[in-house]
Every structure is written in structure tokens, then in C-alpha cells.
């Protein structure tokens, strides 16, 4: 009986976000009817726009954007984590390069993108590189914080018991950084998605950003919302399907 009560409460928990989203849909539909203008199409119109766009390569454009996001995200996580760890572990390095980090952190994304395109041409490498460069400082700052808070007791233990570099990373350092990786990945994904669109808008001939630009010129708001919707669904799927289960696995040892 207790189990069914818990299951019922779990179902209730899952129900509320659904109800909340449904409410949003209703408000949107009502507003669209009230305003009755092509600049605010209702849910039904957006759905038919999505079906229309599907015929014209919706999935291909979404896929192109997804691949760019993946490449830029992996690049930024790897390089940012390495920089953050180095700065967090060495005070000298932090004094030398900490200033650079705040410089890049405050460099507007648009400037990086324009410079990359100017310097390296309108290429895929320039596009992905520009997105990664925007994200690297955020990852580095988060991981630097994690590296500063590494448990000294456990590092001493690793020294006494002569764990080599690989074992220290695998068993002592990385498990402690897991929460910081999760934060960096979450924030990173949201940021990378948005910047990829700008990169596509400015210098690519496919992808969601390119399509948004096209439909902006055609003043096709329904198609723009259709792309935005697909975007939201995929980001949520990544959060629920990848990041959340990984976090649960990484936290399995906690009381």
C-alpha cells in the first residue's frame, strides 16, 4: 500500500509540469485568437507549419545544428576542463592566466564569431571554433572552482598509497569534479545552442539559424516558432535522457 502511495505521488509529480505546459498552450491559443494577427500564429498554425517544413528538410537543418552543437560542446568541455583544472591546481598559473580568463569571459559572443569568420573564412571550422571559444571560459571557471575545492585529505591518501597520475584522476579527482562537470554541461548546452544559431545565421547555408534568418526575411512567424519548438524538445530530451541519468549514476554512492 505504501508503495502504491509513493507511485501515486510520483505520478502526481510528473503530472504537474504537464498540466503547467497545457495551461501555457491554452493561454497561447487564446491570445492568438484575441490578437488575430499573422505575427502571432496559434498552436494549430505552428503545427501545420512544422508539417510543411518537414517536407522541406526540417530534420536535415535540425541535424546540422545538432552536429555543430555536439562538436562545439565536446571541444569546449575538454579544453575548458583542462584549463580550469590547471588553473585550479596551480596558484602561479592562476595568477598568470586568470586575467585572460576574465577577458575572454567578457568578450561578446558576436565579436568572437565575427573575428573567427574574418580570420578563418566562412568555414565549418571557423563556425564551430567560434562557438567553442565562447563556451571555454565558462567551463574553465566552473572547473577551476571544483579543482580548488579538491579534498586535500584524499590527495594525501593518494600520495601515501602511491596512486599514479591515471589512478588519481580516475578515482580521486574526477569523481569529486562530477558535480562541476554537470553544472558546466547544463549551462554549456544552453549557451552553445544559442550561439550556434547566431553562427549559422551569420555564415552558414544550413541549420536552424539559417532557416530562422530565411523565415524572418519571409516574415513567416509560424515557421520560426516551429523551429523553436523542435529545438526546445531536443534540449529537454538531452537533459532528461543523458545528463540526468548520468548524474544519478555519478551520485549512486551518496547516502
Amino acid at each position: 500500500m505504501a508503495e502504491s502511495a509513493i507511485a501515486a505521488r510520483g505520478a502526481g509529480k510528473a503530472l504537474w509540469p504537464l498540466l503547467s505546459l497545457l495551461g501555457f498552450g491554452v493561454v497561447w491559443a487564446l491570445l492568438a485568437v484575441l490578437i488575430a494577427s499573422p505575427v502571432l500564429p496559434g498552436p494549430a498554425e505552428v503545427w501545420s507549419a512544422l508539417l510543411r517544413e518537414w517536407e522541406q528538410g526540417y530534420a536535415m537543418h535540425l541535424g546540422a545544428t545538432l552536429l555543430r552543437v555536439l562538436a562545439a560542446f565536446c571541444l569546449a568541455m575538454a579544453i575548458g576542463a583542462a584549463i580550469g583544472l590547471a588553473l585550479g591546481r596551480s596558484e602561479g598559473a592562476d595568477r598568470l592566466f586568470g586575467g585572460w580568463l576574465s577577458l575572454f569571459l567578457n568578450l561578446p559572443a558576436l565579436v568572437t564569431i565575427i573575428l573567427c569568420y574574418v580570420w578563418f573564412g566562412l568555414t565549418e571550422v571557423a563556425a564551430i571554433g567560434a562557438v567553442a571559444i565562447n563556451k571555454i571560459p565558462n567551463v574553465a571557471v566552473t572547473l577551476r572552482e571544483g579543482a580548488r575545492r579538491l579534498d586535500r585529505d584524499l590527495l594525501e591518501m593518494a600520495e601515501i598509497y602511491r596512486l599514479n597520475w591515471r589512478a588519481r584522476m580516475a578515482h580521486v579527482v574526477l569523481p569529486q569534479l562530477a558535480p562541476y562537470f554537470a553544472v558546466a554541461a547544463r549551462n554549456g548546452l544552453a549557451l552553445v545552442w544559442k550561439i550556434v544559431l547566431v553562427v549559422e545565421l551569420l555564415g552558414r547555408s544550413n541549420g536552424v539559424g539559417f532557416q530562422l534568418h530565411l523565415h524572418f526575411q519571409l516574415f513567416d512567424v509560424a515557421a520560426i516558432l516551429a523551429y523553436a519548438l523542435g529545438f526546445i524538445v531536443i534540449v529537454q530530451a538531452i537533459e532528461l535522457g543523458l545528463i540526468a541519468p548520468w548524474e544519478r549514476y555519478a551520485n549512486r554512492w551518496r547516502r
Partner: protein
Amino acid sequence: MSGLSVALDGKQFDDAPVLGRIAFDLAPGEIAALIGPSGAGKTTLLNLIAGIDHAFEGEIRRPEGQVAMVFQSPRLLPWRTLAQNITLVPGSGGEDRARALLADVGLSEAADQYPERVSLGMQRRAALARALAIDPVLVVMDEPTVSLDPPTAAAMRGLIRDLLAASQATALIATHDRAEALTLADRILEIGERPARLVRDRANPLDRHARRAPGAADALLPGWFGDATRAAE
């Protein structure tokens, strides 16, 4: 060959002297207890001896081979099971040996548990198993029974005594508990207030067999130590 040779001239933290002149040698296989008031610098001295802290004046010669340390907090990796905490240490042998060692300390059932899900006493025993897994020539222990309830502490002392005797390692055990020192050690080293110096260095009048008798250490306790603060002066 010596089990351990300590000739410390001094140790300070930010110009505040913590340890003064401390010199002693341990024979191979000898078990010594290090006692002194809390805050005297026992842990600091153990860190120097174990080789975690290299900033001191003087000379410490460790024997050739592995040094193991049993820390005051067990310092197990919370994200690895008790068995994994042993197998991931180089030179600990494989999975089977880790389980056998855990069985020796009464943890065969808990081998696949995560440290935070077992009691402090069990974590301490797992840390002891890890220390002995590397076949150390020198074992340094910091307050191995502190904050355990009396029966658990007594059981832990029994384990330490038996396992150290079996391993034949040289050992130095810091404790604030004089009865524990007399139960475990061949020799008692006493340090005084900061900056701590070695104030007394005496052999335990109870031999290894005699101190197995329950209550033997307690019976000896009042007369043998006298007043430690007077001795320090």
C-alpha cells in the same frame, strides 16, 4: 637496518614552532605508541614520518619499502566500494586478496558497500585492511580508535594488535589514550606541550603476551605514568 630513524630538529607552521627536538629509532617490527596531549602535534609528526609533509628541519629515515598510513578519519574514497578502495591501491593484489583482507577485519559481508553507508567503525577497519594490503614495512596510525564506542574500540585494538603482529611491520601509533598505548605498543613515546619535545621514551613493562590479558593495561596505568606534566618540566 633500522625500522625507522627520526632526528627532528624542529617544525613550524608560519613561524609558529609546533615541534621541537624529537629523536628516536625503532627496530624493525617494533611497535611504538606516541602519546601526548591533544593539539601537541602528534598528527603533524606522523605526517612528517609518513612523508606527506616535507617541510621540516632534521632528518627522518624511513625503511626501504612501502609506508602505509591509517588516518584519523578513514579517508576512503566515498564513490568506491570498500573492496574497490583496496584494489585500486597499487600493490594490493587483486580482487580476491582484497576480499580476503576485508574478511580478516570482519567485513566480508560489507565488501560491496559504499563507505558512507557503513558505520565509522567499519570504515576504520576497511582503512586498516587497505594499509595492510600493500605489505608495508612501516605503518603509521593516527588515533585508530578515536570516537568509537568502547566495545567497538576494544575490538579494533584487538584487530590492530593481531594484524600488526602477523605483518611484522614496524608501527607507530599516535593516541591520546594511555591504556590503548599500553595494550598495543612495545614502547611508549611521550611528547609534551607545544613546541613538543620527546619527554619520555620507555619500554612497555608488559610483553606482547602479558598485554593480551584483559585489564592488564588498566591495572598498570595509574602507577606507571605518574604525572606527565611534572615529567615534562
